[in-house]
């Protein structure tokens, strides 16, 4: 049972990451490979706020969202000039930079050693110490993210985003300032990813740069692509599958380090095979051409 709770918490963390990245990639059609960077910003803000300044977890979540939001706003303004492959490349480079900041800004992030002993959240003096209650917190935060995402899905804002994905120029002709829409969804996605990071830091109680590498961004992208672009339910299925995958590999009896690499082989291969045979993902509504 504790094991199942652990898996469930991981699932909700990745579900938040997947849903938020889907807003960026699946709705607005921006191929961002930088999601782990914002995930990491949230995690580090929470870790530093809790261990260094004794700030409450929930305040640290807001601080993380704020910082991710500001960073994504600045980066997004630069990125909005790029398209397709240049956009993907720039976002990829941005992830590399943020990773190197986590790794090298030792006075703040403790570099490769990471920050241990991140505390658990407290609500009105009650500490969310057990994994069971932490799961409830994860569900609550996920529900918030999910609600915002479905709200966006049904709103005129969401429809404009999908239209941008389909035909950006047509929208420009109609007088929409396309870049503002793209920027807005990029910032929203980044702030959501930061929430997942805060959860992760407090749950694992330890952060180090390796959790926020480029591979992590590709992993989150695989969740989105597998489920299907523009499909929130698909993303949940993708997150479930890819979170269970390493556990299944360990179950089969592969040693841990080989299992980690095999997981990479499998989700990488899934990306390739989907692109060749079924680019819309398993339940996606949007056909990638």
């Amino acid at each position: 049972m504790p094991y199942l709770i652990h898996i469930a918490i991981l699932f909700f963390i990745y579900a938040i990451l997947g849903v938020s990245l889907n807003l960026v990639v699946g709705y607005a059609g921006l191929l961002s490979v930088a999601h782990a960077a914002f995930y990491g910003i949230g995690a580090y803000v929470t870790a530093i706020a809790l261990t260094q300044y004794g700030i409450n977890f929930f305040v640290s979540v807001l601080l993380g969202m704020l910082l991710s939001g500001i960073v994504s706003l600045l980066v997004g303004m630069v990125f909005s000039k790029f398209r397709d492959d240049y956009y993907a490349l720039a976002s990829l480079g941005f992830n590399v930079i943020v990773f190197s900041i986590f790794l090298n800004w030792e006075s703040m992030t403790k570099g490769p050693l990471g920050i241990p002993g991140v505390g658990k959240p407290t609500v009105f003096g009650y500490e969310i110490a057990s994994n069971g209650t932490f799961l409830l917190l994860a569900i609550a935060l996920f529900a918030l993210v999910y609600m915002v995402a479905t709200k966006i899905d049904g709103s005129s804002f969401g429809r404009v985003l999908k239209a941008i994905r389909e035909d950006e120029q047509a929208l420009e002709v109609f007088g929409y300032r396309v870049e503002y829409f793209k920027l807005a969804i990029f910032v929203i996605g980044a702030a959501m990813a930061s929430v997942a990071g805060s959860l992760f830091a407090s749950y694992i109680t330890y952060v180090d740069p390796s959790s926020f590498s480029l591979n992590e961004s590709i992993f989150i992208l695989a969740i989105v692509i597998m489920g299907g672009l523009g499909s929130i339910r698909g993303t949940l299925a993708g997150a479930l599958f890819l979170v269970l995958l390493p556990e299944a590999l360990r179950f089969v009896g592969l040693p841990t380090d080989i299992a980690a690499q095999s997981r990479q082989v499998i989700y990488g291969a899934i990306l390739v095979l989907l692109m060749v045979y079924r680019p819309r993902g398993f339940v996606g509504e949007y056909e990638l051409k």
Partner: protein
Amino acid sequence: MGILPQIIANSIIAGAIYALIALGFNLIYRTTKFFNLAHGALTVVGGYAMFFLYKQLEWNIYASALVSVLFTGGAGYMLDKLVFRRLRNRGASQMVFLIAALGLLTVIQAIIAILFTSQFQTLADSAMQQQIYDIFGGIITQTQAIIAILGVMILVGITWMLKYTMFGRAINAVSDDEEVAKMVGIHTNKIIGWVFFIGSAIAGLSGILVGFDTGLEPTMGMSLLMKGVIAAIIGGIGTMHGAFAGAFLLGFAENFGVWQFSGEWKDAIAFIILIIFLLFRPKGIFKR
């Protein structure tokens, strides 16, 4: 003053490595019009193929280098045949190509890590004392000299090939307009397959050279590719001499930046240069 020649020497070495990667990447980009992010993984394939043959099977150095380069070329050819050609035939969008390339990168890196562990490996013999050259006070090892010379030779070779051979003209035709090239009877898929072979073989060669110069790691492909792509873009994407100029500009900027700031920010410096170019001179130094 004392340190300056050394920084210049280091910049030239870095520039030569980036140039090799940029050349292969550029050649593929020119003909296929997409960013082949899997190109970085092929440097790793080349480096580790060499590691396997030269270090583990203890083959002769030239034979292992030749086989590794051909093997990497073949691997690149297979990637095109099995994945990219199908996407091309379907008329897939940029995004599909990029995602497929990211997937391939992930798979190849992980397979190499499973086969050879994630440990840092080096190709250079510890016992073998390298010949060292002193050029105006800057120290260059033999491997580094070879890198610089090979870089120039391959640039000259490819430029010559593109200009004066039938095959090179076919490549130019395909890169100008694939449809028209097909109409006039050029077997485009075959040409692109060969371009993948040649570009990947160059990537394999650069992986081998990096293995001798600094060492191998399964994850090195991504950062090498980044440098290659940045070099290609700031030089003017699709132009061969531009890739070369961009690579050396990047090499110099990085090494002088490291001199002024600190070594950890190398990647950040490269990326900032890219952003500046993309914003103010998106076509690069030499426009095509």
